[in-house]
């Protein structure tokens, strides 16, 4: 059997069809190798962040109605088992994973209140328009549970030539972590050093180059102070990190080379769906090969970036239907549902791909949680009194996500919980107990904004 996995095969592996069975022997073999090492037990967290808000109605299972006033007033958690319910049409593609889902309503995030996008505040729980004030949860989780790449952020920007999106993720104060929006570059950054075919000499030359450049930047930096010096510090850090990573990738080069997806013409196609599918696929490969344990996948988002999806019959950006505009044949709500359905299909395929890889006593999906949310909370112009979240997977039994719809106490209630509590829960679940995250919401006088969401932590 050809051990080089082609892009299309990996695509199929990630749930697109028959090749999953073709590849199963290879993957089982790989998993058997993996079973004995520490990687098997690593917890994997995937964020899927879609722009333009997530309607709270979309996370309601059949038989549950939103209050007529539009505002929840429950002072206690309300819970419904998903077993005998159907999912909203927007989430329908996730139905096969219903027993692994937690549909979460009622967690607020008003500290990040802003129109169109909470920017870094969505994953950081701090004000939306102050830039990267602190590490966002994807980077915090990645730092706590690092692979060779502590965190991988891949996405799709509004236009194909926008390579990097700096508005959603942050490694620390003032350190925006760009989302790589070009699939080809994403692939090269993750797999390029072992698939380039230049051999040992090229590897050594690159190591020498990185060392030389680090030294050269250090010399130039000596002339600068303060913020100006920090600019060169960042460049220096880049060379040092690349050098460090190069060594670690080298250690698993053989395995990576065998399992990296193969570049083909599909990567170069600029359509929205193609770009996004390629990124999901690269993310799957990065997780499966153990390059990283934390992935952020973004679809638009940050500022006012709402890609159009002409392939789905929606040739206009989300701002248009965010303001109630329809397109021929679709109302604005039908646009929202169609776009969400599409993203749910990608999520389901990703889950299927992870499920097909054995890990420990189960599958890779068993040790994963996919966190699906919007950078704009509950709408195009959100209120953020509730920030709908879909959780898929229980992270090796660390999360209680098995087939539940949970409506947390309303914003005014004493028992109200926030997105910060959810992120603390995730940090606890990956073995980095943290009880405070982001900036507290001053509007919440009584609710406990620190600690975990105990109803979700296993």
């Amino acid at each position, binding site marked *: 059997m050809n051990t080089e996995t082609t892009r299309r095969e990996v695509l199929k592996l990630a749930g697109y069809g028959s090749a999953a069975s073709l590849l199963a022997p290879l993957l089982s073999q790989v998993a058997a190798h993996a079973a004995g090492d520490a990687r098997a037990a690593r917890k994997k967290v995937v964020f899927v962040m879609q722009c333009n808000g997530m309607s709270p109605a979309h996370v309601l299972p059949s038989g549950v109605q939103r209050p007529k006033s539009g505002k929840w007033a429950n002072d206690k958690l309300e819970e419904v088992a998903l077993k005998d319910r159907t999912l909203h049409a927007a989430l329908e593609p996730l139905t096969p994973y219903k027993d692994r889902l937690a549909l979460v309503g009622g967690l607020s995030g008003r500290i990040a209140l802003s129109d169109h996008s909470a920017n870094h505040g969505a994953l950081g729980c701090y004000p939306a328009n102050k830039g990267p004030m602190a590490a966002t949860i994807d980077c915090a989780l990645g730092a706590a549970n690092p692979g060779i790449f502590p965190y991988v952020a891949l996405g799709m920007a509004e236009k194909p030539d926008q390579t990097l999106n700096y508005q959603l993720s942050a490694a620390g104060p003032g350190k925006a972590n760009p989302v790589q929006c070009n699939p080809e570059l994403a692939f*090269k950054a993750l797999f390029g050093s072992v698939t380039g075919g230049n051999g040992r000499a090229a590897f050594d*030359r690159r190591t020498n180059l990185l060392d030389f450049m680090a030294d050269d930047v250090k010399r130039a930096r000596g*002339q600068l102070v303060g913020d*100006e010096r920090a600019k060169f510090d960042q460049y220096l850090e880049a060379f040092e990190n690349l050098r460090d990573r190069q060594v670690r990738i080298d250690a698993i080069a053989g395995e990576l080379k065998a399992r990296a997806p193969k570049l083909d013409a599909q990567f170069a196609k600029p359509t929205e769906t193609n770009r996004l599918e390629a990124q999901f696929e690269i993310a799957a490969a990065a997780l499966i090969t153990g390059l990283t344990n934390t992935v952020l996948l973004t679809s638009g988002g940050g500022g006012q970036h709402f890609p159009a999806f002409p392939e789905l019959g929606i040739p206009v950006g989300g701002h248009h239907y965010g303001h109630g505009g329809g397109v021929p044949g679709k109302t604005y709500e039908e646009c929202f549902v169609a776009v969400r359905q599409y993203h749910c299909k990608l999520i389901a395929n990703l889950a299927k791909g992870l499920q097909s890889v054995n890990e420990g006593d189960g599958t890779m999906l068993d040790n994963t949680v996919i966190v699906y949310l919007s950078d704009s909370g509950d709408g195009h112009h959100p209120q953020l009194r509730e920030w709908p979240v879909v959780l898929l997977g229980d992270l090796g039994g660390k999360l209680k996500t098995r087939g539940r719809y949970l409506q947390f106490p309303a914003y005014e209630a004493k028992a109200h919980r926030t997105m910060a509590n959810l992120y603390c829960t995730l940090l606890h679940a990956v073995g980095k107990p943290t009880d405070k995250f982001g900036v507290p919401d001053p509007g919440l006088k009584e609710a406990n904004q620190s600690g975990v969401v105990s109803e979700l932590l296993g």
Partner: protein
Amino acid sequence: MTRAVWLSLLAVTPILAGREPPARVADPDGAPATQFVAAHCVKCHGPDKRAGGVRLDDLPADPTKAPDRWTAVRDQVRDGLMPPAKEPRPDAARARAVVAWVSEKSGGRADKAPNRGNLIPHELLFGKPARAADPPAPRVWRLNPEAYMGFVQGVARGKVNGLVQPFVLVPERGIRDFAGLYAIDEPSTEILIRNAEAIVEVQTAHELKDGKVLAKNGAVREFVALMDPKAEPTAQQLESAVQVQFQMALGRRATADEVERFGALYAKCAKTGDRPGAAKTVLQAVLLKTDALYRSELGKPDGQFGRRTLAATELAVAVSLALGHRRDPALTAAAAKGELTTREHVAAHVRRILADPKADTARLLGFFREFFEYGGAEDVFKDKPKAFVHQPRQLVADTDRLVLYVLAADRDVFRELLTTPKSFVNYATAKNKQKGADEPKPGVVLNPINNKGQSGVESVYGVETWEPVQPVTLPANTRLGILMQPSWLVAWSTNFDNDPVRRGRWVRERLLGGNVPDLPIGVVAQVPDDPHRTFRDRLTVTRAAQCWKCHQRMDELGLPFEQFDHFGRLRTAEPVLDPEATAKNVDKKGKPLGPVYRDAPLVTSGTVADSGDPALDGPVKDARELVTKLANSDRARQVFVRHAFRYYLGRNEALADAKALQDADRAFVESGGSFKALVVSLLTSDSFLYRTAPNPPAGATK
């Protein structure tokens, strides 16, 4: 606090490091700013009430001791947000004086972010003749995306395949390439390394034939000499290659120390036996040096007051990249010969480049695109109209040409841009190979099948037939200047409507030097969707008190442009739904036959208020009167100069830049409105040429 204490406070902490006496006492009545706060703020922000958690009764008289609270007071007062509408209004002059005083006392430092430059009150910069002040601190300025491509063009003469843009600009409105905003992070570094590899492949392109190395097109002779896998290069060959790459990438020679270090890198890489690979690594490293990717503006001591002058090599890059995207060879040569050391040298080169039609002056048009932002027309999605062709790219191209036309004449540029009745209309050129010259042609040609029944792009301008000789003079009393170009009107429109709010905001910020706070969080800005009402009528939703405190700074400045529809077409009435006629529009069986519209009378009036220039304030009957007033306003022209400063110096202006701004404005006026004279003045100002010596870094090591 007594007035005497107030004055003495100012006297012991003068602004601008002892060079300037305080501009004036905050309040013409002699009452200090703390009294203003006591009178207008403390009622709600006192020890008991503390509205919004803010207490101001204990505000120290020295703003530097409570900068956050004082800045908050300043911004609220300046933007008219406080005191709230239900409270007595403060006297406008007193309020302005307080704003100015807080800005002065807090050091007059510029905000780093784009679109925040107007936070320094205009009066502090232009209110009285300025004197020289401390130059800014040394800095490095990362290349912008276009300058990076210019750099690539400089080092790889031919086309480089697979090159990816490593740099992006912040997603902000307007002028965005600010030195303080950009560094090079890890993902960008990865792209830079990959690009450097691709560039060096082009530079060293060769083939081996009969054991000989033959250079291919575009390769550099000194580099190809190192590509023989069997021959060990001499030290001289290696140094020569390093020097050539330094000259191409950095515009300077490598120092002896650098030659030695690059030689060591070669030796280390060549150990594996791959000599050509080692040489390529050395060449790549030069392309990744900080001074290849950053504009260095550190300066060298010039012996005056600890001041530093930009070094000649720094000046060569700074001037080149202020005007275009590539290093100007003559500037590089002048720097090497020691002929770029004085203000006059710089002025002569700027004039030379601006006068040379072949020189790279791409950033001239670039400024006007960022200032007016008419290019945004291409990003506004609109349904395809049935009656005419909407082609935003052509509209933008027409406006580009108009700007270049005005710049070519270089007379009265500001006034011309705002009030010229001329326009390019669906204009393009094509090369006539036989004649060897460009010939005019329509930009968008109608396709008889696809465009059946549609009128062409010309109709958007109100012109019936395409003219080969352009610009044309548009029909009288229709439109004037850039703000009535269809491109600008479309750029500041929405999918279905005009956008008088953002048009007004543009005028407030870009021509009046005012500020509008960002949309308060959680506010859903939606104009009611009532098709039977005019947009102006629907927009009255913003007159509610909580909206109007900000919208009063925008709406009335944007409403005169209701003279045009959202495609930029002149109109005399606004079609609105006629509900009664629609109800009656049914067939014999009572089935509706569709909406019926009626023409609602058009109102194009507006008001200029609180502009800072009393001569400007007052009602205007339409957009033409508005732009004509603005075009003749000193304040609007000075605000334009402030924006040019931001663009060419890559930062917001600080109080210390007052002299550079006033000099530039004077040069602009005295030259009869020559934009080139304005640019020469900016690029020879102290703010551009000088830096202040930095304090040595604590514990800095090499």
